[in-house]
């Protein structure tokens, strides 16, 4: 763990601005996938609508920028988190009444409703043009980014900002999945009937899991929008939910670190696929099919199996 963190801390000293920006996107995708995976990996529920929470986070920030005052990142987060938490609680309450494919379809349907609203309510959301978000001040206005070198400074500072939040998110999520609550989720995932006969209120656990999951993914959306400078309805569209699912599968949803690795790798994969070919979606499709066939446990799952085999071979 420590060497990886050290590497991430030292990263801006030896890579160019563009790479820093890309890693920041990767860390944000990792937070989104980490949240998503509390539902898939630990609760056994596949959400196909997590774009809704990511997008709501992004749009809340954009809305605050347009209508309310201070251009401060902390202010955005302070307003954004309750919004995504309430939305997750409301939508989750409806969705957890079902499981399996029915749950998936419900999450998808709700996210598409949110997407349509973002498209139609153009006087609030800017329609398909979206909303612009200028570079906010960080640390209660301590760091401002106007001036000629503002962009570079912002990218580097924002990288550390996101990195710090990322570390907090990883620690928080690690505690959640290792808490009695996290164990109960895994029990419900493995065997719902038995879990009920331990006296666990299944639906309430799933609901809270959904709430935490959506809030993490929503936070990722909040962090994403100042970096991107713009939010459009694309981040609410179902294909974006698909990308979150893809990230978790890519890294391996049965490992804690899987979605983190998946989020970062996916960001690079998509960026280079888009740069290489017009048919980048086809390229990603091939990767996905290969992944499911060859490496069903994802990158982290595959690596840990390999490590286990090597250790066995040696002894």
């Amino acid at each position, binding site marked *: 763990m420590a060497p990886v963190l050290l590497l991430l801390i030292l990263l801006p000293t030896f890579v160019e601005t563009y790479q820093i920006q890309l890693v920041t996107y990767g860390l944000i995708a990792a937070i989104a996938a980490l949240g998503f995976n509390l539902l898939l990996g630990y609760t056994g529920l596949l959400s196909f609508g997590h774009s809704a929470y990511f997008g709501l986070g992004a749009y809340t920030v954009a809305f605050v920028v347009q209508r309310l005052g201070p251009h401060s990142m902390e202010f955005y987060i302070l307003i954004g988190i309750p919004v995504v938490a309430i939305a997750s609680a409301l939508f989750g309450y409806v969705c957890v009444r079902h499981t399996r494919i029915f749950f998936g379809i419900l999450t998808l349907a709700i996210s598409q409703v949110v997407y349509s609203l973002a498209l139609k309510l153009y006087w609030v959301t800017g329609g398909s043009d979206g909303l612009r978000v200028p570079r906010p001040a960080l640390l209660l206005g301590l760091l401002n980014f106007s001036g000629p070198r503002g962009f570079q400074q912002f990218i580097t500072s924002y990288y550390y900002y996101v990195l710090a939040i990322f570390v907090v998110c990883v620690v928080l999520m690690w*505690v*959640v999945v*290792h*808490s*009695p*609550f*996290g*164990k*109960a989720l*895994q*029990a419900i*995932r*493995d*065997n719902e*009937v*038995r*879990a*009920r*006969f*331990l*006296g*666990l*209120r299944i639906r309430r*656990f799933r609901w*809270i899991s959904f709430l*935490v999951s959506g809030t993490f993914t929503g936070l990722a959306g909040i962090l994403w929008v100042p970096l991107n400078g713009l939010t459009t309805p694309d981040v609410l569209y179902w294909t974006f939910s698909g990308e979150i699912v893809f990230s978790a599968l890519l890294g391996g949803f049965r490992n804690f670190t899987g979605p983190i690795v998946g989020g970062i790798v996916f960001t690079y994969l998509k960026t280079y696929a888009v740069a290489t070919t017009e048919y980048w979606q086809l390229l990603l499709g091939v990767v996905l099919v290969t992944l499911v066939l060859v490496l069903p446990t994802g990158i982290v799952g595959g690596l840990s199996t390999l490590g286990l085999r090597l250790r066995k071979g040696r002894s």
Partner: protein
Amino acid sequence: MPLLKTVNLRKQFGETRACDGVNFVVNKGEFLSLVGSNGAGKTTLVNLISAHLQPDSGQILFEDRDITFTTVTDRIKAGIVRSFQIVNLFDGLSVFDNVALSIFSRDGKAVQMAALADHDYDVRRETIEVLGEFGLTNKIEVPAGGLAQGERKLLDVAVAYALRPRLLFLDEPTSGVSTHEKAQIMDTVSSVVRRGMVTAVVIEHDMDVVFRYSDRIVMMHEGSFLADGTPDEIRANKDVASILLGAPLAS
């Protein structure tokens, strides 16, 4: 003194009367066996008492309190706990976590999100104690899915037992294991249950096991009770013999 009483309990599936006006009494502290051929209604009766199913009519009384319409969670809180015929474990979790979760749930700690499960030393101590009683101490870190069948059966009972029930239903705790293991499992289960002063109702097919461990035996047939008595009385009952074996029992 009766701990549990059912009054005229009925449950019908289509044309089949799985429970046909059953008046079932369980006394405090006894080790009772529920026997009968497949489809006699034993599991249905347990399903009704544990709130897995709702009865069509009749009443369930636990310590003279009507619990007919209470939920699964209410009944577990009252102390009515069950295991399942087909082993029902959390295969992705370790043996330790399987039992620890029962204790977390029982103590209302399963909702804790900001504390590490492994750092709750009270729960840890009790979990190890329970696993010790069931002879699973050396399997603590193994995932439940990686246990042998006999061990899975024991863990299944341990998970139910860790809830500290007052009335424990065990649905075929020895099905699917070798004859040799059967005796081992029943020795362990019956001694733990008796030591913990838990009232137990066991559904069991193996009559050797039933005669050896039970204080009382209740025989079901086509949804009603056919016989009720001590092992000796049941052994002497001709109806029981003819239904169980189609022939008189060899003594």
